[in-house]
């Protein structure tokens, strides 16, 4: 599809952007005294449906469904969103492998709206016919399954699948024509590598473990990052200060939650110019990312309200909004 073919979809998205939550709406949510008040305010703003119960999970899941339903209605090639849907697909793979290796059925463990579905992946794994899985998933699925069966090491199984997820995202980003997808894939992989480095440093993991978990990307040298992680968090910050993630180093020095927020805000900063782009698939990708960011922010506020956290500590965790 050429850029012009997205004209209808982008114009529709421009209208839908009006209903995204802005900073004022987020402040209103933070000012609500209870979680129930927040949910009522969200319902007034059109979140959920008439039949959606006034519960956080139900409402947030419905909003995620709405976003993807809107994209499907646009009549565009949905493969452009592969980069964004891989984490859910690989989550289903992870859940399916664990489900196959343990007794009993555990409903509600899979994300819906994925291709192949969680149930299909589970059936393929039970039959050990890994070639039926998508190409980007097959080898990792087999390795993770065999690792879990032989070692019963769930963490190692997760590391294999998480790495395969990042590799799939990175490969899809490299292949994508849209610059926003390339940037998103690069940032996602780099941020994941930084998180692996920080967590490995805190749990004293080996260099070998880190290299097994990290994925090569253009903006970071994972060898230097892993070696920095062997020393201290300060060494990680020092290495990052000489990269495109210098801002992340400052946030990392502040607190882990500040770093998480910085990661999400960086993606929002990357996609913001798409508000003024009338053509191409990029505003659609930006809208999906903006919705994900919005839902994540609302989830943070709702769980903070449910746990009676003070407003100041909620503000620390609230992400920058797209509009």
């Amino acid at each position, binding site marked *: 599809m050429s850029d012009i073919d997205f*004209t*209808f979809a*982008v*114009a*529709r998205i*421009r*209208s839908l*952007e009006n209903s995204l939550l802005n900073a004022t709406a987020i402040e209103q949510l933070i000012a609500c005294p209870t979680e129930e008040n927040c949910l009522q305010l969200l319902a007034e703003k059109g979140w959920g449906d008439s039949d959606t119960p006034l519960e956080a999970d139900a409402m947030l899941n419905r909003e995620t469904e709405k976003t993807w339903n809107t994209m499907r209605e646009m009549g565009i090639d949905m493969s452009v969103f592969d980069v964004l849907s891989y984490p859910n697909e690989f989550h289903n793979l992870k859940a399916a492998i664990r489900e196959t290796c343990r007794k009993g059925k555990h409903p509600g463990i899979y994300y819906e709206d994925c291709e192949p579905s969680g149930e299909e992946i589970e059936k393929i794994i039970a039959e050990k016919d890994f070639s039926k899985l998508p190409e980007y998933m097959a080898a990792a699925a087999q390795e993770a399954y065999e690792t879990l069966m032989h070692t019963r090491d769930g963490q190692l199984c997760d590391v294999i699948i998480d790495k395969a997820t990042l590799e799939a995202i990175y490969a899809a980003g490299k292949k994508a024509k849209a610059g926003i997808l390339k940037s998103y894939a690069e940032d996602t992989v780099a941020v994941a590598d930084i998180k692996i480095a920080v967590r490995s440093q805190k749990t004293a993991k080996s260099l070998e473990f880190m290299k097994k978990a990290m994925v090569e990307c253009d903006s970071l040298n994972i060898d230097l990052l892993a070696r920095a992680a062997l020393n201290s968090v300060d060494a990680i910050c020092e290495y990052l200060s000489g990269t495109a993630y210098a801002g992340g180093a400052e946030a990392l020095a502040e607190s882990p939650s500040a770093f998480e927020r910085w990661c999400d805000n960086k993606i929002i900063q990357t996609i913001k110019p798409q508000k003024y782009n*009338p*053509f191409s698939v990029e505003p659609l990708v930006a809208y999906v990312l903006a919705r994900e960011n919005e839902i994540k922010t609302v989830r943070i506020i709702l769980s903070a309200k449910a746990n009676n956290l003070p407003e100041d500590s909620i503000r620390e965790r609230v992400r920058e909004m797209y509009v």
Partner: protein
Amino acid sequence: MSLGVVFALLGAALAVILAGMGSAYGVGVAGQAASGVVAEDPSQFAKVLILQLLPGTQGIYGLLVAFITLSQIGLLGGSIPAIDIPTGLMILAACLPIGIVGLVSGRHQGKTAVAAIGIVAKKPDQFGKAMLFPAMVETYAILALLISILAVTNIPV
């Protein structure tokens, strides 16, 4: 029938075809954007319809020049006139400005109208300002129309 008439008719045809193509593209692409906005907010129908129609004028200009050309060479009278080749070529050249500029400006005005429809979608109260951007492109179609009309009407047939 002289070859001059063929050239003159070719000029009229090009004015209609090229300018019409530009308008069809512009109105088409702006129509897609207008549909996208109306799908979410039907109350914007009138505003986006006006913006969609802006690139349609090039086609009308092409039709006008073609009509004047046909009238000028006397074809509308029902008989095939005798026009020499140099005059026919001059009429063809006179028709080209609106044809070519109509094609290019129609496409660009369509794209600018799409961007303006985006403004209306986000800020409906800014419709007046939004309309000015695609209207600016119209200037160059009007300039070409003027030259085509002046040239066609001043060529002695």
